[in-house]
């Protein structure tokens, strides 16, 4: 009688579909990636509990106030007198504009209040006080 060895179970992990899986992941990350557009260094945002997330990034305009009382629009230094003019033009171009006010937690409220006054002049009425979520 001739005893044949039984065919053993293949022991290697199939790697043929590895590329497909990676492609899928790649596409997911390519689609979901949003590059940070503007960044002003040294700004510490305050923390709050009742925060809402802003959707529609293309409507968001950024205004920064640093601890040393400097104002930045997007990431360029601006004078307080220029705020109304710049945001009025943007408001005309995009009526659904939201201004994300990113102020340092050490900035004095008086300055922020006068910035808000300027935004009112520019008819930029939808604002958002940027905060981090309190943990």
């Amino acid at each position, binding site marked *: 009688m001739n005893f044949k060895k039984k065919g053993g179970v293949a022991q290697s992990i199939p790697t043929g579909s590895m*590329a497909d899986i990676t492609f899928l992941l790649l596409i997911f990350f390519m689609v979901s990636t949003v590059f940070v557009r503007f960044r002003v260094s040294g700004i510490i945002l305050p923390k*709050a509990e009742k925060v809402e997330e802003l959707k529609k990034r293309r409507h968001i305009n950024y205004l920064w106030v640093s601890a040393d009382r400097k104002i930045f629009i997007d990431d360029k230094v601006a004078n307080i007198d220029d705020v109304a003019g710049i945001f009025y033009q943007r408001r005309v171009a995009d009526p659904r504009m939201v201004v994300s006010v990113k102020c340092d*937690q050490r900035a004095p409220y008086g300055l922020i209040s006068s910035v808000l006054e300027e935004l009112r002049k520019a008819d*930029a009425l939808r604002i958002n006080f940027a905060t981090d979520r309190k943990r």
Partner: protein
Amino acid sequence: MALQRRKKSSPEIPTGSMADIVFLLLVFFLVTTTMNQDKGIGMQLPPEGESKKIQKKNICNIWVNVNGEILINLSDQLSITQLRADLERRMVANDKLIISLKADEDTPYETFIHVLDEVKLSGAERISLASPSE
């Protein structure tokens, strides 16, 4: 003399390193992806030049000074932890209540946001931000 045929190069594109390339791209996107969304406390400012006469009993003035001390209607001094419950009680008593938040010019923004957060957490919908010079 034995003439041997030359070896033909295969016409296929080598796909063996495809996975490596894709992995490289994947790692790049993994590293650069930022999932953080813009978030904060949303407010709708009133149009310029608009001022409404509001009955005094429907206004609740909250004053915040430089040290973060809170004064309501110029009479009750509260700490920030008591503010939410106090406002909730006031809003139950008067559903037309408008919260007017007045902060001192030199109040740190952090204190202002903390108070505004508590006001929002109390469920207040009508909030007015008064400028410090008023």
